[in-house]
């Protein structure tokens, strides 16, 4: 393991991933992945296409089942649990391919995501979502399948927020979007950080994560190869050149 000081262990750890192996059929995708996410912090999980970012996110969300290892949230082991149990434990998952309910209206998408947080908190309501995402308020009766990619991305994030998560898993939220939309998503994530939510942000693009995340982990071929603060990663040319497409 290369890297300097491990920023993410500062303070208390809300989500801890230890030694998870994930297989798709017979092929092994993740090899003993470890991650620690500090409460209220944002961790960027960086890596090239196919490095294992999405699989790691899916494993935490319960969509992919780890064959080994543990995933603990506030001390509760969640590895191998169903996605709905993990979601109710306070982990909100925003998939990379958006997966809005295309036949439902924008508002119905939000209502399906509505639930109380793990401490019974109802910080995110329809009103607050519409306040934070004015574009969704304007489109609330529109069928979600008719929205643009950027709008759908906003909707998936908002839909997950309606479940009042303590940890938000954002899987490549900037992928395939126009630069101006990417910037809007970045601004949104910065706004969310101020609410105190913990974020795990899977990204290929380190520059997108600068100014958004404090901590960084780099994954390559299913192994975590580097852990540091995002500033430390940026300064480390050897790692960025070797593992990131920059």
């Amino acid at each position, binding site marked *: 393991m290369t890297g300097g000081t491990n920023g993410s262990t500062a303070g208390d750890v809300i989500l801890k991933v230890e030694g998870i192996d994930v297989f798709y059929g017979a092929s092994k995708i993740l090899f003993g992945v470890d991650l620690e996410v500090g409460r209220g912090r944002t961790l960027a999980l960086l890596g090239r296409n196919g490095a294992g970012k999405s699989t790691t996110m899916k494993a935490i*969300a319960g969509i992919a089942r780890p064959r080994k290892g543990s995933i603990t949230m506030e001390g509760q082991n969640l590895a191998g649990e169903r996605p*709905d149990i993990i979601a109710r434990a306070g982990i909100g998952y925003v*998939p990379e391919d958006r*997966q809005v309910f295309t*036949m439902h209206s924008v508002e119905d998408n939000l209502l399906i995501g509505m639930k109380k947080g793990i401490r019974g908190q109802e910080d995110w309501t329809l009103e607050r979502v519409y306040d934070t995402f004015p574009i969704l308020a304007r489109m609330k009766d529109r069928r979600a399948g008719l929205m643009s990619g950027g709008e759908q991305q906003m909707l998936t994030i908002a839909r*997950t927020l309606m479940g009042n998560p303590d940890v938000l898993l954002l899987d490549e939220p900037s992928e395939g979007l126009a630069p101006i939309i990417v910037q809007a998503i970045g601004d949104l994530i910065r706004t969310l950080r101020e609410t105190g939510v913990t974020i795990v942000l899977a990204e290929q693009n380190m520059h997108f994560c600068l100014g958004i995340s404090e901590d960084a982990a780099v994954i390559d071929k299913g192994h975590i190869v580097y852990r540091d603060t995002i500033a430390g990663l940026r300064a480390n040319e050897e790692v960025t050149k070797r593992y990131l497409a920059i």
Partner: protein
Amino acid sequence: MIDFDALAACLSTSACLVNQATSGLIIGMLLFLVASGVTLIFGVLHVINFAHGSFYMIGAYFAYTTYVLTGNYFLAALVGAVGAGICGILFERLIISRVYGQNLLMQLLVCYAFILIVDDLVKIIWGAEYLAMGIPAEFRLPPLRFAGGFVPPFYLFLVGIAVFIGVGSVLLVTKTRFGKIVRAAALNAPMVSALGIRVNVYFALLFGFGCALAGVAGALAAPVRSLTPGMGLGILVESFIVTVIGGMGSIPGAFLAAIILGLTRSIGSVGFPLFVDGAMFMIMALVLIFRPTGLLGQGAVR
């Protein structure tokens, strides 16, 4: 084969027309209730419940016994519906959920085994001979006269309840949070699950609701039809025809198709009594040729 004289004689007298239309509507509404359960379950769970007729039978027998014990038909109908619904949830959880996504033959075999077991259970509990509930005390009123024909009050009640439940089912699926979740889960269950929703519970409840619709139909049929083990099979076949004609997944389609088939049955019993079943299958074949998705079908519940 076709008795044109009898057909013309009936169609030209309003009394006969009213009587045949009424009995056609009764058959149609029973078919509609059973078929809307089949179509809902298929539209959401993508599984064809070949055992659906058994829940019709369960509803009828539960209603019969409740009526015999209490003399209260409304309670009997409620017990028939709820009892069939609970049996449906158990059937879904214990049996059919294990064959979701498996090939059709496996689902068919499992359902057929269930049909045989339930038929035998009914024989053990209620006996193999025909039972008749008769028109319930609440409805032993003089028939209403309408354009020369007679319409028993129970028939009006049956049609009213069926329409009410049909409208309620559509609203349940399209307007309630339950319906929205279930429709979303039909298309993308893992995503709905990742939002914290126990998808399995919703699927079981929807399955139970579909079976409760068959149970209501059974309870409504009990006063006008005789009860016998195996009574589920006939209605099952007809409700499949209704589902195919109306369009898999479409409740309004099931309603339309059920009325068409009900009228075909009642008018056919006058004009071509030997070809009633044949006529129904012919209508189905024509619909499949000219409109393979069914009259109002879109492939899934919308």
